[in-house]
């Protein structure tokens, strides 16, 4: 079965939506295969109203390979129901869903429901949850939906995700949504390459800076007006001495990628329509393989209302960085202008995705220029800067917990703290406090560096945003909306270090690639535990736990937010509380696709303690 229809309508189609609603409302189980799930959709009205009834919601997804127009060119892509991204799936909290996924490829495939709590056999990780979906076969996923919010789904087989096997997923709450809006859009960000992803990975393995065309050069060193060449040389030599690059922000860059917003490259200009005075919900989903984005809408403040699908206490900001696999829901209230640019700049500033919020189709607003590429700092390196002016804060003992000793709320509000431009010191001005020091175990030859001092960076802005002259969301701004905190203290702590070797392109936990570890991480069924993550590397790693929430200990007590993916900044120590309430085998990994593939992957086994 090949479905030729496009997965996403590119504009609101009211008639179509009415038809769809009618079909959905009338039938007990409804198949949305090949339908064009309406784009401009009010979550509350079009969602729950359209999903009336209590019977299971049924969907058919067909994974195939076909040639299509994408990113301004033509390519063979892996598609779901004929498109990239796949269709917008809308579920309802409390209902059962039935998803028949058919594999039209000549290799096995799978779909993983990212962030969804479900029985582990339905989680979609080949050879962990199930054997995968063989060519020609259909696998039926069936499970009750216990949560609500904005999520996504993607293949968990090899590198298929990079080739297009991903799509948005919205679960409407059973009760009234606390976020009331007039319009509701998904903004799905992804990175497309016309290269074979296996070639991309192979090149990284041979030359890890293959795609980095923003490296330090002699030209920079003599750009005196920026920095002064003496300081520039000192900085270059400091990094060279450590055999690392301060420009190593993204492994795969705009040199290979075209960044897409709802499947469209910037010239395609995805447009979300609004009428003046309306409240518009934008559900940002970062479905990229490797790319973080800085998201802003010049001229329009954004009120963040949910993170990783979970409602948060609304917090207003002007920009946020979204890690791979994270989602943020924001509400905007467009003002007098007819058009606003939705700007999603790649974290390394090598490219961007962009679209427009407009009062009518065809309008555009100015697209801001890409800002100067960021550089990593001593803080990212995890270096002790005691000799650099006493930024140490308080030095906790090894084992103290990030976030515990801070009442929080001090992170995101302050803007413009001086144009501190120096590379070596960049970012130090707002560096979080040192909360622990690294032990003697440097994780073996497969790991290049360790965070000698580990900082609580939850109040810090994302890489490259320290000097943005406006508000920037930080993790410490996130407060859980629901009053459902489990007051049990954690009975146990598990500490894992994010490690790697850029030049060899090996990525790992505790210095061991997945094939080198001897078994799963054991969670005892029923326990509440604390997971501590320390990033010894120089890169941001979005760490994803399947099947269970990670409650990010960002200092807000019973209001700490639930996340399925936590970005751990370089040199950071973060902790999360986890209820090990989902028996089975779960993947736990860095969601940078090539990092996962190169070993930054573990299995978590949740089982009763006596057999674990």
């Amino acid at each position, binding site marked *: 079965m090949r479905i030729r229809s496009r997965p996403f309508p590119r504009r609101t189609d009211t008639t179509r939506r009415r038809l769809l609603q009618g079909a959905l409302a009338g039938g007990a189980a409804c198949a949305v295969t090949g339908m064009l799930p309406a784009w401009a959709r009010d979550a509350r009205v079009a969602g729950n109203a359209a999903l009336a009834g209590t019977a299971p919601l049924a969907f058919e997804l067909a994974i195939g390979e076909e040639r299509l127009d994408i990113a301004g060119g033509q390519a063979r892509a892996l598609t779901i129901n004929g498109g990239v991204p796949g269709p917008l799936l809308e579920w309802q909290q409390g209902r059962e869903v039935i998803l028949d996924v058919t594999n039209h490829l000549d290799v096995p495939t799978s779909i993983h429901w990212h962030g969804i709590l479900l029985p582990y056999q339905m989680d979609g*990780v*080949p*050879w*962990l949850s199930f*054997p995968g979906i063989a060519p020609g076969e259909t696998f039926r996923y069936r499970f009750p939906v216990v949560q609500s919010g904005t999520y996504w789904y993607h293949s968990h087989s090899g590198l298929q995700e990079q080739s297009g096997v991903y799509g948005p997923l919205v679960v409407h709450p059973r009760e009234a949504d606390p976020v009331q809006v007039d319009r509701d859009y998904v903004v799905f960000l992804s990175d497309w390459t016309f290269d074979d992803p296996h070639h991309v990975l*192979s*090149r990284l*393995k*041979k*030359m890890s800076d*293959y795609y980095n*065309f*923003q*490296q*330090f*050069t*002699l*030209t920079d060193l003599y750009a005196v007006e920026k920095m002064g060449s003496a300081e520039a040389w000192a900085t270059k*030599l400091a990094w*060279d*001495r*450590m*055999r690392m690059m301060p420009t190593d922000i993204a492994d795969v860059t705009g040199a290979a990628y075209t960044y897409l917003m709802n499947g469209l490259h910037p010239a395609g200009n995805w447009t979300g329509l609004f009428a003046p005075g309306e409240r518009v919900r934008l559900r940002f989903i970062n479905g990229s393989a490797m790319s973080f984005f800085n998201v802003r809408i010049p001229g329009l403040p954004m009120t963040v209302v949910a993170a990783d699908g979970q409602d948060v206490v609304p917090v207003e900001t002007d920009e946020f960085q979204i890690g791979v696999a994270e989602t943020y829901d924001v509400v905007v209230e467009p003002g007098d202008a007819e058009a606003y640019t939705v700007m999603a700049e790649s974290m390394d500033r090598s490219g961007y995705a962009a679209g427009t919020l407009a009062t009518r189709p065809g309008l555009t607003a100015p697209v801001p220029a890409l800002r100067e590429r960021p550089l990593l700092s001593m803080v990212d390196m995890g270096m002790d800067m005691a000799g650099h002016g006493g930024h140490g804060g308080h030095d906790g003992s090894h084992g103290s917990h990030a976030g515990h000793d801070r009442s929080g709320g001090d992170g995101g509000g302050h803007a413009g703290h001086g144009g501190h431009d120096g590379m070596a010191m960049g970012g130090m001005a707002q560096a979080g406090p040192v909360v622990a020091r690294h032990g003697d175990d440097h994780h073996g*030859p*497969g*790991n*290049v*560096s360790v965070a000698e001092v580990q900082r609580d960076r939850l109040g810090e802005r994302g890489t490259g945003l320290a000097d943005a002259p406006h508000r920037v969301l930080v993790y410490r701004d996130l407060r859980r909306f629901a009053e459902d905190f489990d007051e049990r203290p954690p009975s146990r702590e598990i500490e894992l270090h994010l490690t790697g*070797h850029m*030049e*060899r*392109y*090996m990525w790992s936990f505790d210095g061991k*690639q*997945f*094939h*080198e*570890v001897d*078994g*799963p991480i054991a969670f005892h069924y029923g326990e509440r535990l604390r997971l501590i993550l320390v990033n010894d590397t120089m890169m941001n790693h979005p760490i994803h736990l399947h099947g269970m929430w990670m409650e990010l200990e960002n200092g807000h007590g019973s209001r700490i937010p639930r996340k399925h993916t936590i970005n751990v900044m370089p040199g950071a120590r973060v902790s999360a509380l986890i209820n090990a309430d989902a028996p*089975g*085998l779960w*993947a736990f990994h860095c969601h940078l696709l090539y990092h*996962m*593939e*190169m*070993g930054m*992957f573990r*299995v978590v*086994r949740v*089982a009763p303690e006596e057999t674990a």
Partner: protein
Amino acid sequence: MSAPATACVLGALALLTVLDGAAYDPAGTPDDWPSPMPHMHYGMLLGDRLETRFADGADAYVWDVQGWYGSGRRRAWMKSEGEGEMGSSPENAEVQLLYSQLFAPFWDWQVGVRHDFSPNPELTHAVIGVQGVAPYEFEVDSALFVNEYGDVTARIEAEYNLNITQRLVLQPRVELNAAFSDVREVGLGSGLTASELGLRLRYQVAREFAPYIGVSWERLHGETRDIARRAGERASSTAFVAGVRLWF
């Protein structure tokens, strides 16, 4: 290929297989399920210097090719270098086959064999070496060679890549050779035997393909220099070079 060389390659590949092939048991999946995250091997072939040298009418060709296959930690390596006058067979030609293991974050130890196909007589050496990246990003390749007569020689090469722009790279390179005893068969005297200093400017048309121009200063030293002079050969030369660096 000589018997020891063949044995070395097969041994290295067997080691790679044994050391990297461990199955993972996630404790709970059926026994016949494979690992949920397969471990893959990669390989690379690099022509670091494929060049012509222009010096005093006696133009020469030079190759310096390396390749590896394996994982991040354990690799089989092949290294070959040699040179000769244009239009004639190589004066020097060697191939090394090595097993390589990461022992420190930026360093591999390597063991294997080297065979010199020229000059005559052909010699086979055992090789033990260290290859890696030194602080300040110097790429270093060093090795001790013991030939079948027990003669010990050593070589160290270091390269540095200075980005002038994102595509234009200046590469200084130094190579030192030494002998721990006289190896009369091939005209080596004890001590520092030969050195080369090179400076190459390459333009990366693509990462994989970079034509370059440069200059190379070669010198013989000590007893080796005297042997060469007695044989009527030159003890030093300066050459302009043009070539290509490529990999795939």
